[in-house]
């Protein structure tokens, strides 16, 4: 082992210690949770120990109940997400390429965008009733805007130098669009898709909680009324894992679709 090998391994030690410290913190907090519940430090019926939550999670998964609920929520969410994103990309491309259309449509979009999603649920109940159609619609509605805005930005912010390059090489309009504008806009579009995915899950849950009849959000609210903390916490845990997995999935997808784009 050369001197530089030894010294570089020694340098790695503090880095390992640091990475471990974060995990140690999480473990310590979980231990605190467990202890506080078992030892009765917290005076509440609704504070189950972490192990009880894990047990409920295991039961829920094995019995198929949690996967079914999750599947329900995710399924309708993805349908809405796909619809809203597709619409956002389509309109975004149109608006990005036509400044006039942009000027016409922009104030409309800017008026609708700041409305809190939760607020349009009650009117939608009137039209679509409580249930799955509402879920799809509201997820689509909320997915639409970030994708739209990012797509417009991606199309418009294409480097002017690249555009001039296309002109000096006398590329046709269709070719410029295909070879330059679209690929150039892809990173921004993906950023919008990522943002929308995060929002989509939250919105689906809100829809289920306020006006739902199925899915994991609805289950959580029901568990609250039934005062059953352990299954409820288990469902939340399940949801958080799903959210994490979705995020990783789209990052992986982005990497394969855009290998040339360095992460900022």
């Amino acid at each position: 082992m050369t001197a530089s090998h030894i010294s570089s391994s020694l340098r790695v030690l503090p880095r390992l210690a640091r990475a471990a410290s974060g995990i140690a913190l999480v473990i310590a907090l979980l231990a605190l949770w467990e202890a506080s519940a078992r030892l009765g430090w917290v005076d509440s019926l609704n504070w189950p120990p972490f192990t009880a939550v894990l047990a409920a999670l295991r039961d829920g998964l094995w019995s198929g109940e949690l996967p079914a609920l999750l599947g329900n929520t995710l399924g309708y969410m993805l349908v809405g997400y796909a619809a809203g994103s597709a619409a956002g990309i389509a309109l975004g491309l149109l608006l990005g390429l036509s400044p006039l259309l942009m000027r016409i449509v922009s104030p409309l979009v800017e008026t609708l965008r700041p409305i809190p999603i939760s607020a349009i649920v009650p009117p939608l109940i009137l039209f679509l009733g409580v249930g799955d159609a509402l879920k799809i619609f509201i997820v689509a509605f909320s997915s639409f805007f970030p994708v739209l805005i990012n797509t417009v930005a991606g199309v418009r912010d294409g480097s002017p130098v690249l555009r001039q390059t296309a002109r000096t090489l006398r590329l046709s309009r269709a070719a410029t669009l295909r070879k330059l504008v679209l690929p150039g806009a892809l990173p921004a579009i993906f950023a919008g898709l990522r943002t929308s995915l995060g929002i989509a899950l939250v919105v689906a849950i809100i829809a289920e909680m306020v006006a739902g009849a199925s899915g994991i959000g609805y289950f959580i609210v029901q568990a609250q009324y039934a005062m059953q903390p352990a299954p409820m916490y288990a469902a939340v845990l399940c949801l958080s894992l799903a959210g994490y997995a979705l995020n990783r999935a789209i990052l992986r997808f982005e990497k394969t679709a855009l290998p040339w784009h360095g992460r900022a």
Partner: protein
Amino acid sequence: MSRARLVERWLPGTLAVAGVLAAWELLGRGGTLNPALLPAPSVVLATLVDVVRDDALAPPIARTLALMATGYLIACACGIALGVAMGRSEAVHALMEPLVELVRPIPKPALIPPLFLFLGIGLQTMLFIVVLAAFFPVLINTVQGVRGVDPVLLDTARTLRLSRRATVLRVVLPAALPMVATGMRVSLGLALTLVVVAEMLAGENGVGFLILDMQRAFQIQKMYAWLVVLALLGLLLNGAFEWAERRALPWRAHLS
């Protein structure tokens, strides 16, 4: 910008909005729209005027806004403080990152029922929820902003021998401010949304509660009136934020 250019810029869009409203009104009057589902704008406006006349406009707005503002400010303060610490120090970042990455993917509305169950249904719980939700976008963006400060700027601070405090206050924070502002903008929308959800689930007053309550009581016109109020609230908050952002960061437009 000249008068003519201002008009050219805003006229098509304003006409579009006006057009939509006019079409809505005509459809409503003509009987195409079911008034029990979607009353005409004039009806909604009249209902709103009634509400104002009854002095019933201010209290729910005040309630909702107070809750939102308190939670939002606390979340921003905490998010920026921790964000700077995590952005500047690898040790702090490594310590906090797993915990943050664990809590972040949880859809915050899903935490409302557990928190209601555990902390009870009340103002403090609702405040806690708003803080929890608004905290993360600010934190994440602050960390990114601090870490993304141009190394040339940091080296400039070093070669001019600025103290650590001066470096953070005079170089790091201003440089990170655009990203922090983005996080704060996202959090603003999130805070409002979550206050409304919390009110709908277990509130007793406030704009969100009223919207759901009116729907359940089939007072459709009032529901839409309060919806318009909430939409305007969202618009105003957003506009105010963007105005403040432009004033605080005039140099942002000129960054390459």
